[in-house]
């Protein structure tokens, strides 16, 4: 097991390196932040001094190397606008984003698995057609619109749930549902088609021939074999959820890392953008590494390959 993880490690580091390189390059292309820091009282000399102090007057490969050499030691610099260590600012927000993403994922799986399984089992039934139509709608609806509709219906009209912000579990419901919808719909469709493929396999016929109960066959022989593509999708989904969290966090005034990053991009707060991109990418990579390990449990062939 640990050998497997160690084998994956270099690739993981390479991905991280690529992520920081690309985001650094793109930030650099959008111009230096000094202009946005200015107000009516700042002179050209002050801007120049600011640039020099922050090191923005150096060639960008040098800036990148400097950034990387500090970043590997956990120092992403000081936020240009908030005057605090960028890494700490991002770390403070990560739990809220993870809370939202994990809740959304839980909802998505809890709904998608039974829906997909039943749809596949009763293929072409009215239930199958209705739920797949709903899934199509769920996959197409923009999070932004959905979030506002959820607020209008459940918070403003029915008054069942709070509009936005944090607090008890009730605050988590609407943003998590809004964020989960896309994954929920996509996973239901994925599970259905993965199951359909498995259901047509010969070992399923063998299982029936052995005289096993239908439920045992579907869950033990069918679902377990359908899980591999589903797990892959769920791993990728986590990236979608972290990305979607940006919109959801904005609509529901949720204090997560996504919102921080967007504001930092608009305000050209380079240290925060780089810290949060690196951190979110690391989380994403870690989760996919974890899923790779889980594959091994589900399918011993992968472990031994």
């Amino acid at each position, binding site marked *: 097991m640990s050998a497997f993880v160690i084998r994956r490690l270099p690739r993981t580091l390479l991905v991280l390196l690529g992520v920081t390189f690309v985001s650094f390059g793109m930030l650099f292309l*959008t*111009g230096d932040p000094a*202009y*946005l*820091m*200015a*107000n*009516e*009282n*700042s*002179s*050209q000399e002050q*801007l120049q*001094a*600011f640039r020099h*102090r922050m090191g923005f007057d150096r060639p960008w490969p040098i800036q990148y190397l400097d950034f990387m050499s500090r970043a590997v030691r956990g120092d992403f610099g*000081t*936020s240009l*606008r*908030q*005057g*605090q*260590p960028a890494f700490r*600012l991002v770390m*403070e*927000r990560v739990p809220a984003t993870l809370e939202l993403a994990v809740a959304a994922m839980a909802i998505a799986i809890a709904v998608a698995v039974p829906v997909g399984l039943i749809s596949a089992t009763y293929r072409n039934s009215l239930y199958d057609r209705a739920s797949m139509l709903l899934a199509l709608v769920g996959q197409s609806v923009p999070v932004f619109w959905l979030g*506002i509709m959820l*607020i*209008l219906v459940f*918070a*403003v009209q029915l*008054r069942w749930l*709070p*509009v*936005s*912000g*944090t607090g008890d579990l009730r605050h988590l419901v609407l943003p998590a549902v809004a964020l989960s919808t896309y994954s929920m719909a996509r996973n239901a469709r994925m599970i259905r088609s993965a199951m359909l493929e498995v259901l047509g396999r010969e070992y399923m016929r063998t299982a029936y021939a052995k005289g096993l109960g239908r439920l045992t066959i579907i869950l033990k022989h069918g679902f377990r074999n359908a899980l591999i593509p589903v797990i892959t999708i769920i791993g990728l989904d986590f990236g979608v959820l972290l990305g979607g969290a940006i919109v959801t966090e*904005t*609509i*529901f*005034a949720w*204090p*997560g890392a996504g*919102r*921080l990053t967007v*504001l930092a991009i*608009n305000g*050209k707060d380079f240290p925060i953008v780089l810290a949060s991109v690196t951190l979110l990418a690391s989380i994403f990579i870690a989760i996919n590494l974890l899923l790779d390990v889980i594959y091994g449990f589900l399918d011993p062939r992968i472990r031994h390959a």
Partner: protein
Amino acid sequence: MLRPQMLLGTLVVILCLAMLASAGPAGGRVVVGLNIDANTLDPHFVSSTQEYGMLKSIYEHLVWFDPAKGEFQPMLATSWKRVGLLTWEFRLRQGVRFTNGEPFDAEAVKYTIERTIDPKVNSNNRFPGAVNLDRVKVVDPYTVRIITKRPAATMLTQLWILQLVPPKYFSSTPLSELARKPVGTGPYKVVEWVKDDHITLEANPDYWGPKPAIKTVVFRPIPEVSTRVAELQTGGVDVAIDIPPDQAKTLEANPNVQVERIPSGRRVFFGLRSDRPPLDNVKVRQALNYGLNFDVINQSLLSGMGQRLATYVVPPFGDPSLQPYPYDPTKAKQLLAEAGYPNGFDITLEVPVARYLKGEDISQAAAADWVKVGVRVKVVPLEWGVFVKKIFQERNPEGIYLLGLASAWNDIDDLYDMHPDFVFAEEKWRDPEYLDLYPKLVLSATKEQHQKLSYKLQEIIHDRGPMVMVWRQVQIYGVNKRLVWTPRLDDYIYPAAMQLK
């Protein structure tokens, strides 16, 4: 022997006293829905109106400003006078303490001013060049003199920016700590700040002035305006800022909500680059003013709440006799012909994206108006950072650009915006009479002379200035009716002025 009545009476008195003690002078909780969170609570590093506003409850100034009257009132200074042309002397309020126990005195004033210009601190709210500071002199613990190199007519305006800090705490605490934990003399202090979620203020029990009526004030950043409106409708917040005109109508239908439309100090106008053809010609600039149909813009985009600007200077300093340009396309065409452009010309209009209320829409509407008189306008939307760089720093607008500048609430500063010495004088307009009169305004000795010069300068801008006046942007607040509060003209939210019904 105690009689039962006496016992009962004593009990009632004790109960009443106990209730009074626990209720305290203030009670209640008010939630304010803003659109962004503060970046920092270090008063010398803040940049947004909302941060300034929040901090005015925590840190205080030597003077207090009332924008409705255009008048300065005592705050931490009880009185002030000018000693000669170059010196301002302030008598300070005695017995005031910062919430960490440090006393407020002349040293604190000196320390604060010096901190803002300390290159090691590198504040972005420096005690400004306009004042030409020479030095700050502590005369005695409660008298301080601010001495300038040139006469500083707008000293009090600058002091309304300068928030006073405790020297010991500030000199012994790292910057990153100061950004999170403010210590001031104000009516409120910060008890909790969860970034991007809420800042909670609580009434300062030792405040030197009248105690605020509301004990707890929560500022919540809610970036999405539909969410802010929903929070207001459900009572989640008591005040919501930046309501768009179309949503204001919906809100008015809610029996619990009051909508306040406050004309702010932000004057939105089309800047005109005046150092090269065709906009260097006064007649062309006037033609553009006559060619703008503000009534249509007002009705279709601003729900009819706008008023076209007549003068660039905000009340009460604006010249009331100046009239806004009427819509007169015939006159506009005639002026263009007289200027040598009978067939009009092509020009670019640069507008920052998502910066001013309906900014892009107003620009498109204006462009359509101007096409009708022959000026073919190409509207180019620019991201704010790009806009700032091109217009302010490089001072290189293509031709026309949309801008909204917040007023400093005095005519000297307002009129300086058009002066070529102003650091962002992107319009490149040089009018000999204006350049001659402006310094006289700054040095004017009497109120009458000041007003006469100010009105004359306003007239010059109106008649031949480098701009097409649009409007004074209106700030729309939604306020829960349980709250008694009139928003300030300068957009600062000051909870000590709020009361619950």
